[in-house]
């Protein structure tokens, strides 16, 4: 009973914090709400007319939605790079930032689920996927594995920070015996969500571009670069807008993770390029299309070369320790890396899997305005969710939000 009371108070208090803030904060939230509304409008068009309002077709049947989904799974998995040192290796540095990392994971997972739903042809019969009520094709379909691991990860990332914040809210110290096993589990789980998502594509013998053993590991490497890069940027913003203390030491440590992951990612990229272009086979056509274009069809060229350039520049700069320590340079590199990997995982991975088609047909794909609108709307939703979570968490961590002890 008492717990419920505390919880009720927590909700009320956090609602209070969320709705109050500086002018800039209000503008930010209003902006996000506006983008979300635009996204909803676009989605309603899609519901009304069907997926024909998107750029997808029978030849390229997955597009922007699934690309973003794939990328965001990586971002979600990356929160673990902060969890591990803090909870498991008892590295105190990360403690404040880890809650933020988990907040990002939650927001990213919610966006993932939203992207999957946006991609469905029949959202009204999605209950067919609920085990027990519908038919869940487990363990045959990798998609069902993905549903399980994503929801499990969402649960973990909600419950651990909630437990910690809930204790702090009451002015108590969280018990490590409770959250450490959860943290260890979530470390393993993060690897799982990423590997399983890679298997989704890797397991299709019909698409040689994906059917490649390096896909899973490369997913992990790029995720562990893009995710912490985003965390650095978010922490930078929080640092400048709130009184929440984040030390340079923390940022530097995360930067280290980003650097190593980015380096591994580049090594794997080189290995992949070598295989595709040293002894090109019939199966290298997708890669050819991606990097050089086929039959004069070159829609992806500007994207992929921008991504690779950004990726290489960022990795090179980060590798030099002195430059990495300069925060301005670090932020710049993180932004570069984030965008580069977004392109690589989106346009660079999902779309060329379908081109050329099973019989060599080259039909290109370009997202429509409606598709872009829905995508932006979902990103805004993610940012909104994260802002709300972060604001509450910061309030509690700073001690502004506390449960007032009453006699009961």
């Amino acid at each position, binding site marked *: 009973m008492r717990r419920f009371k505390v919880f009720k108070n927590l909700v009320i208090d956090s609602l209070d914090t969320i709705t109050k803030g500086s002018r800039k904060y209000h503008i930010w939230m209003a902006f996000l709400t506006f983008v979300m509304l635009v996204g909803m409008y676009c989605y309603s068009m899609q519901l009304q007319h069907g*997926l*024909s309002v998107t750029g997808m077709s029978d030849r390229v049947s997955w597009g922007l939605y699934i690309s973003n989904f794939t990328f965001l799974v990586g971002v979600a998995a990356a929160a673990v790079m902060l969890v591990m040192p803090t909870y498991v290796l008892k590295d105190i540095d990360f403690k404040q930032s880890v809650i933020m990392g988990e907040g990002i994971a939650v927001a990213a997972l919610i966006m993932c689920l939203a992207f999957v739903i946006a991609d469905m042809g029949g959202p009204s019969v999605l209950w067919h996927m609920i085990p027990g009520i519908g038919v869940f094709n487990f363990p045959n379909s990798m998609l069902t594995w993905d549903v399980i691991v994503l929801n499990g990860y969402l649960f973990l990332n909600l419950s651990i920070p909630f437990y910690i914040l809930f204790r702090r809210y009451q002015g108590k110290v969280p018990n490590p015996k409770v959250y450490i096993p959860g943290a260890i589990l979530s470390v393993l789980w993060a690897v799982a969500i990423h590997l399983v998502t890679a298997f989704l594509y890797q397991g299709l013998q019909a698409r040689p571009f994906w059917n490649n053993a390096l896909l899973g590991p490369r997913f992990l490497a790029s995720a562990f670069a893009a995710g912490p890069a985003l965390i650095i940027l978010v922490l930078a913003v929080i640092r400048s807008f709130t009184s929440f203390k984040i030390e340079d030491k923390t940022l530097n440590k995360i930067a280290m993770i980003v650097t190593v992951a980015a380096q591994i990612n580049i090594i794997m990229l080189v290995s992949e390029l070598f295989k595709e272009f040293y002894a090109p086979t019939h199966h290298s056509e997708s890669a050819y299309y991606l990097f050089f274009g086929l039959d004069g069809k070159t829609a992806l060229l500007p994207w992929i070369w921008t991504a690779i350039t950004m990726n290489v520049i960022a990795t090179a700069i980060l590798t030099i320790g002195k430059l990495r320590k300069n925060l301005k340079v670090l932020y710049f590199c993180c932004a570069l890396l984030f965008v580069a990997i977004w392109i690589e995982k989106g346009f660079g991975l999902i779309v060329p899997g379908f081109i050329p088609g099973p*019989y060599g047909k080259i039909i290109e794909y370009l997202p429509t305005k409606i598709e872009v609108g829905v995508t932006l709307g979902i990103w805004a939703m993610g940012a909104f969710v994260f802002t709300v979570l972060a604001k509450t968490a910061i309030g509690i961590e700073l001690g502004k939000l506390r449960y007032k002890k009453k006699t009961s």
Partner: protein
Amino acid sequence: MSEKKKWYSLDLGLNRKKSDTACGCGKTEGGCGSHKPEMTDDAFLEAAVNASIGEEVRKDGFEQVFDVKMDRRSAFKKLTASLLIGAGAVSTSCSVISGDDTKEKAQIDWEEQFKGNYKLMNDEEKKATVDRLMRSYELRTGKNISMTHENAEEDVLFGYAFNISKCQGYMDCVNACIEENNQDRNSQMQYIRIHEMKDGKGFNFNEADDNYYHEVPAEGHFYMGTQCFHCDNPPCVEVCPVQATWREDDGLVVIDYDWCVGCRYCMAACPYDGRRFNWSKPEVPENEINKNQHYLGNRMRKKGVMEKCTFCVQRSRKGQNPACVEACPTGARIFGNLLDPNSTIRWVLENKKVFRLKEDLGTEPKFWYFMD
């Protein structure tokens, strides 16, 4: 309804006859509190059905011919109105004023929305859903269709052979297929593709043209048709998260259009470009609809679901040839029972040098090519 259900279904009392207790209050006719909002029940249900899954379910494929346009506001409502439809159905079932037809429609809609996967149904349940679909079509259009649900017969395994030497690229098969299978005319969907290839280049699909508009046979070219190959080890079936697509005992790979959630994973998994998706609401002019239908075959589809060649299950299970085989003027297409030693298809497999596409993938297509 059977005792052993493989899925969960809500019983809202819609199955009960009107003379039964139609309302929680115990009275058949009005007089208890819950009968009050009767006057608006009809309108309410209409609105609720329209607003929510209506597009997908109420029309249930049949109404794809009627272009019922919705305004944008109602599209917004769809997001939340699944609950409303339930409430609407309950209140209609309690209502004494609403017309019998409306009530019957509501009942059908409800049962169709929450029916299970066809693959797991027993014969009784299959018959029930087929009857509902036919009745629903009648209620909405005043016209009758015939829909069947024959199961796979024993000792039958369907296979197909394609004679590359004979095909001249007339595309009669394509047209027959479109008409037979009620394919969407708007998006020009076609299950069969005919690839025009250059002589002397071998089977070079990369340079082939599957969308030609000129007189055939074109000089210096040969033709090759592809469609779903009804793989014996179909990757598309493995990946479906809800088992909306499966291999029947006679080897046909089929889809339950009402169970498919439209994720298109199967499309990515198919190495043969066998599947087609309804990107928008499929439309067939009423007078062109083929009314001899099979639940797993050419019945009307709705938007957002997968479909593909079924070897014309509505014909082949009645012992007929698929429409494409019948339509081919050159005799390039051969269809039959692989388990029958006297069938033409067996003769072809035994006496011709046959091959299949992408055999290295281990999908075991039941579609062979050969030359004279």
